[in-house]
């Protein structure tokens, strides 16, 4: 029993050590040559543009359902016109960043782990090294940059369509005046809220992509290993999104409010 706990702890510490080393290597790769510009452009396109549809849909329906649910509750206090306030505050501060990040964990985290995992088991990563290419610079750096920078952009898009979804429901179902809704949207926000909604996705994007890369590059054991890596990447990235979100929110509250 003790031996197995010991083994488990050793494996966990090793995993953390390797993750930190990968992040450090990626950090070095971002500031020193060579850079692989084509791979960067490709990743910005795949991670950013490629995730647009799923983020648009998630944002739209989340905003709509928020308006629908809160409309009923607010009615009990005769506060239906304030529905915009609720939608904007929830979307911008919390739901926009977290749901976008969770969608990215499913779409991007799994994709990266599967791709790098397959390259690992087919010895393509070794082939890259044999050909003189550092896989961290070629594969990890472009993905981390794209993930970290595109996650906030996608979050803004999600926030916007979410508020738009709320507007559709507020005006069509709840019969709130359009002008009243938009005024309420703005009134619901403190100046710190958009900042919080904008700062968090940088960390969430970084967590998702770096975990995907780490899990992918540690894939062992053929096609079965790739399957395992993909699942692990999604699970670890999703949990990390919620955990990082909590800690960053806590930190930002202390610093800004």
């Amino acid at each position, binding site marked *: 029993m003790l031996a197995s706990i010991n083994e488990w702890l050793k494996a966990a510490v090793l995993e953390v050590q390797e993750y930190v080393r990968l992040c450090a290597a990626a950090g070095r790769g971002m500031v020193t040559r*060579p850079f692989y510009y084509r791979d960067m452009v490709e990743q910005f396109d795949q991670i950013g543009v490629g995730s647009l549809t799923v983020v648009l849909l998630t944002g739209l329906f989340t905003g709509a359902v928020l308006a629908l649910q809160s409309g009923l509750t607010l009615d009990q206090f005769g506060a239906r016109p304030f529905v915009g306030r609720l939608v904007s505050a929830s979307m911008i501060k919390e739901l926009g960043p977290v749901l976008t990040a969770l969608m990215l964990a499913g779409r991007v985290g799994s994709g990266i782990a599967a791709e790098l995992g397959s390259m690992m088991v087919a*010895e*393509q990563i*070794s*082939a890259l*090294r*044999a050909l*003189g290419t550092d896989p961290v610079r070629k594969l990890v750096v472009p993905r981390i940059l794209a993930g970290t920078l595109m996650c906030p952009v996608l979050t803004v898009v999600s926030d916007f369509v979410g508020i738009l979804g709320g507007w559709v429901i507020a005006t069509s179902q709840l019969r709130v005046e359009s002008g009243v809704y938009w005024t309420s949207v703005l009134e619901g926000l403190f100046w710190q809220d958009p900042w919080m909604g904008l700062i968090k996705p940088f960390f969430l994007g970084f967590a998702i992509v770096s975990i995907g890369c780490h899990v992918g590059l540690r894939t062992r054991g053929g096609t079965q290993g790739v399957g395992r890596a993909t699942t692990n990447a999604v699970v670890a990235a999703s949990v990390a999104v919620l955990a990082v979100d909590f800690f960053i929110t806590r930190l930002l509250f202390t610093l800004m409010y």
Partner: protein
Amino acid sequence: MPAEDPRTRQEILDATGAPIVMFDKVSLAFDDKVILREVSFTLIKGHTKIILGASGAGKSTVLKLILGLWKADGGVVWVNGERVDQMGEHDLMRVRTDLGMVFQEGALFDSLTVRENVGYKLWEELRWPDDKVNARVEEILGFVALSEHIDKMPSDLSGGQRRRVAIARAMAAKPRVLLYDEPTTGLDPITATTVDEEIVKLRDLEGVSSIVVTHQLRDAFYIATHSAERSNGGVRIVQADQEKSEEAEFIMLRDGLVCFEGPAGELRRSTDPYLKTFLS
């Protein structure tokens, strides 16, 4: 390298009979599983080493140690006059410019065409201009007789063609040493022979030193006992003479130890029961 030798490293390496790869009592173990136990051998410039052994005998490990993909626990590994067993990844990149490796199953990049695979290093690492890369890629694909497949994806090629593209990719930057990891495993005998012929051609016509890891005896003996020569503008594969075939040395690994080292004839004549079982 001997300290008293007045020649520069380059002069030593350029001379005939120079040691290109040297293993000196190299050991490696993963946890309590011993992979290599004090393995020593020397690859002479322009010669071939054929490493034989059962699965899991540590054959492929030797190649990974030469490339610096793995690090030995003990002993010294010299490649082109540089000690690679303690080298950092950054310096290893320099050593690897003179090494080409053909991986098991080829390890071609699936998302790139044959042209992009073969020209990868020239284009991405050596930053050659496009027209120069294209010229070299076309030349090298002509050499392995795959010119018409230049714009195909690796998935559209047969197993033998993929291995030949992998050989072309490994030799694109004209390395002095080529490492082959099970180049013919899983191929039918006829296709395997086409791959063997490429290995022989590269050794005899391009002067590449090679290490071939395999458990396919037929191919191992083919490589050792044949040579390539140019005739009438083409290339002919012929039976090698005695001296030439002795330039190909066999190493048999068993449980991490070298249990035989010598040319093809000696291996055939060996009375060692393990070798006889392996050869039968």
